[in-house]
């Protein structure tokens, strides 16, 4: 009986310790923004795979590619066998399918500067990098508060020109523009990235237009013959269109318009 009890104790303890000291949880990130955050808080070692769109920091591109926002290779995913798959909102329907593979989907909503901070902190907790994540958020907050402009301009942000797609007030870019002290002229649209008519834009009368993806801009120039139009470079685009740990630079960009 003694033997049995000691054996039981030993096996119970083994289970207990095994649960506590298992190797760190592994992740696959399907969002460039979440990948950036994982790197910034020093949790990139736990990142087993990324999407083909994850290109920052440069070393993220060396991780195993699992797919893009339209297609995920389930076989590659199974081979990596991560504990969690990180998804940005918009991939909601896809998350249903991962439970069957034994991979827990984590969906992050990043609609505002504050929700970006929350995401950073919650990833910090999940990966055991709590201090790092707190520091990242603190630094971002400091930098952003010093960047703010006090002469607001009316900014029109266009995602693309054919068709004309802009940002609504549900988009985090709208919040970034607000945070920078400027005014987004499309802030009365309750949507994320609405396709709008040229007639509507014409009546907004912006001071400066920022275009994310440049294509044929003949119409835009005819509509706004006297307005300053800025076309973002590839790097600026990655910076501004990602709700991640470089939003301080995005805020600075808008503040300095």
């Amino acid at each position, binding site marked *: 009986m003694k033997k049995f009890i000691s054996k039981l104790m030993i096996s119970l303890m083994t289970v207990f310790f095994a649960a506590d000291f298992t190797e760190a949880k592994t992740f696959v990130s399907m969002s460039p923004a979440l990948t950036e955050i994982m790197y910034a808080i020093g949790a990139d070692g736990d990142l087993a795979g990324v999407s083909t769109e994850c290109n920052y920091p440069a070393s993220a591109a060396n991780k195993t590619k699992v797919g893009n926002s339209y297609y995920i290779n389930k076989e590659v995913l199974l081979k990596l066998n991560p504990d969690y798959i990180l998804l940005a909102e918009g991939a909601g329907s896809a998350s249903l399918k991962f439970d069957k593979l034994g991979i827990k989907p984590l969906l992050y909503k990043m609609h505002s500067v504050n929700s970006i901070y929350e995401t950073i902190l919650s990833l910090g907790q999940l990966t055991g990098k709590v201090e790092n994540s707190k520091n990242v958020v603190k630094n971002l907050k400091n930098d952003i508060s010093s960047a703010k402009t006090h002469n607001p301009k009316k900014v029109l942000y266009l995602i693309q020109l*054919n068709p004309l*797609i802009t940002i609504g007030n549900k988009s985090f870019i709208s919040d970034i523009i607000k945070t920078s002290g400027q005014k987004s002229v499309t802030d009365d649209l309750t949507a994320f990235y609405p396709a709008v*008519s040229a007639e509507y834009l014409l009546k907004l009368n912006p001071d400066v237009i920022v275009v994310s993806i440049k*294509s044929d801009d003949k119409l835009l120039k005819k509509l706004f013959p006297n307005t300053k139009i800025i076309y973002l470079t590839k790097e600026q685009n990655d910076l501004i269109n990602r709700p991640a740990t470089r939003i301080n630079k995005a805020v600075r960009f808008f503040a300095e318009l």
Partner: protein
Amino acid sequence: MRSSKKIIIILTLFVFFIVALYLATFAGHDSFGFGLLKKSFDLKNDTDSILLEVLRFPRVLKAVVAGACLALSGMILQAVSKNPLAEPFITGISAGAGLGIVLSVLLFSGFAYSFFGFVGALISALLVIIFCGIGKFTVTKLILTGLSVNMFASAVISFILLTNPDDTYTLTYLLTGNISENTGISDLTLFVLFIIMMFLSALMMPKMNFLRLEDDFMPELKTRRKVYNVVLIVLSAILAGMSVLTVGILSFVGIISPQITRMLVGVDYRYAFFVNILLGAIFILLADLVARVVIYPMQIPLGLVVAFVGAPIFVYFLLKKGGLLND
């Protein structure tokens, strides 16, 4: 039906056309545009004049061109194939046009995508006509070859959509059918091209009346019919291509407009020509007004409005007493 009655129908439609033209140019989401109409006479360089010059006038021109070309193209193909289901894109044009648009977005970031669509449409139509053989041309061959070319090009489009996720939204939007804001050719060129095509088509209308006769009725018709057929199909392909240039891929008008025309004035193509192009133009003008106004400041893709509004209207005409299915 007496010809005086047909002329009255044409004149009535013309009045409707003018009303549609007015609304499409001046009405907005919040007004019927009387203020804008007054302002359009004094040419100042303010927002309203930019609105009219840069946005509304070109848009209305394109709507008229698209409506008339689609309707006419459909009518010609229905006459040639003697099949009321024939539509403008039967000659492989839709997928060819789609492929052109997709390639322009991928290779030139959407520069003059409509023009690429136009070229794609013409190339695919040309391929289909060559495959059919001009000497040994039959309608069955045309339909089946057109179908195959469409299937092939659609597969290529789907493949490109899947492998280029960044552009998927843009491409899906552009492929739905919308008044194009950059056709790649000037509006004046478009207008001149349109007038020329309408003139050529009008010349062919009396010949199209011959096609309704059976071959045994007039033996020498049999050889001439082949020539007419090929000429008409080339004509309809160019017309459908012009519709792609102006509104992208949108063919439904090409089926319903000729059908309603047949109900109104019968099959004498000399009259049907005018009724048909007016109906097509009115339909697209009003559909675009709806697309522009209903969910302002966003707009519904024109292709969706055409389907939403067009399908119920068409079913009504099909089922009503003395309608299309009861003659």
